[in-house]
């Protein structure tokens, strides 16, 4: 499991600019960003270095922000790579609440997802040859 930074945000012009500025001012580098939007509000999900520190920095300037545990799996960056992963999840009875994907400079695709249900997911993934990533594989974790 890795930590994802989640921010609750209204659908208003300029809000994302302010958010990115606040993260930048906290000295935090981002690796991936995705927005789930509804008519009124959005949830911004970010993979970044030091997610706990970023969440605290955002809260201190008035954002509703927190870090959330999500699963990150490396998939081969080739046709059918993700489909093979989904097969394994389906077999384990896992439901995917939300997911997104980004590529690392070393040609690996990282699949990030929030799942519910299922059992023996880690074992099923390992048996199928998938690697569940640790924080240090994806970003520079918070210093303890």
């Amino acid at each position, binding site marked *: 499991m890795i930590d994802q930074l989640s921010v609750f945000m*209204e659908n208003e012009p300029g809000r994302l600019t302010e958010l990115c500025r606040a993260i930048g001012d906290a000295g935090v580098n981002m690796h991936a960003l995705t927005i789930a939007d509804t008519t009124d509000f959005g949830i911004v999900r970010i993979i970044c270095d030091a997610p706990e520190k970023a969440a605290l920095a955002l*809260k201190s300037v008035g954002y*509703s922000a927190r870090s959330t545990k999500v699963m990150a799996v490396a998939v081969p960056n080739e046709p059918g790579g993700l489909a093979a992963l989904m097969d394994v999840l389906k077999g384990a009875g896992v439901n995917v609440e939300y997911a997104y994907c980004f590529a690392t400079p070393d040609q690996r695709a990282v699949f990030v997802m929030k799942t519910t249900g299922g059992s023996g997911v880690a074992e099923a993934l390992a048996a199928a040859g998938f690697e569940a990533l640790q924080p240090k594989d994806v970003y520079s974790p918070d210093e303890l």
Partner: protein
Amino acid sequence: MYQPEIETMDRERLERLQLERLKPLLKRVYERIPFYHASFDEAGFDPEGLETLDDLRKAPFTVKQDLRDNYPFGMFAVPRDEVVRIHASSGTTGTATVVGYTQADLDAWSDCFARAVGRAHGTKDSTMQVAYGYGLFTGGLGAHMGGERFGATVVPMSTGNTKRQVNLMRDFDVDILACTPSYAMHIADTALEMGIDPATDLKVSGMICGAEPMSDELRRELEQKMGAQLIDIYGLSEVMGPGVACECELQDGLHLAEDHFIAEIVDPDTFEPVPDGQWGELVITTLSKECSPLIRYRTRDITRILPGECACGCTHRRIDRIRGRTDDMLIIRGVNVFPRQVEEVITAFPEVSAWYQLVVSTRGDLDAVDLNVEVVPEFDFDTVREVESLQRRIRAALKGNLQIAVNVRVVEPKTIERAESKQKRVIDLRKRG
């Protein structure tokens, strides 16, 4: 207590004092204010025929429009050379209402507010910061005079410049804060942002807050944040200003200053007096005002008389905290709704703060109500579904309590505008026929 001989006067003596003051008052307004001459005559009310306090019920009411019709000085009962101060309402909903004060009027008002300072545990060593607006609004100067009259040190800050307010509260060891509840909350939040915990880093032990409706939940939140007891004070500029009634430290109703005012509660539809304990519109008769006396003034504030004696020792009767105003009451699809009811519902949800705005508009032929409410920074969410579920749960609670459908929208922390004077909780965009 600031004036124990008056505040604990036995009821019989108090009522005799009221009657002694009421008799000459009725005669005086009849002789000196043409409006009262005409209205008494029209109602067949004899200002000299009063035998008991109950006879006052035969007198006609005075309403805000009467004050507007007599703009600016038609309701003054003294010659202009005796008037030393004028206050006026904002006039946002019509002509301003003007109230004049003689020196004796200001003295009585100072005494009324000074009683609040005593009830907020003030001493002569106290330092009281006044963060009500100064000006034509009665809040600032009323609190100011009351603080000085009591013998406290007054810091006349008025509203605004909130960081400076916090710095001076710390530097001057301010122990009493007088302002609106929404501004007190803003001061507490600003202090926290500055890295100052008002509960431990400031010496505030009492707050005297009024001029706005306030739910129990908002009061508790404010008391906790500030680490201080909040004393609710009531008043209205037409009648005097803050100090007409005020809580004691037991916080179980507001003691009316019955040496200066007679209060009645009437049914807002029939205008008949209701028994103690029953809700209705507060009607006030001023007993000692020289310049702008009022007979049976309909305040439009909804409250009730709390029966029984208060354990604090004050014999003056208590009104309950103001539940709303007859003119704040929203009629939405035929249902009566007070903004405070909305506040009581949402403060039961820890995910959201007490900051909200209610927008009433017309969609098609129907009234539509939108509620914007801020989530707290600690709001624990991860998926869209969770946020939508929160909105649904608040909506269901409102439906259950108010019997109306409200479109709930949660918004980011600190995005609903903070007012420094009176918080605008309701925006009514409906077109009036």
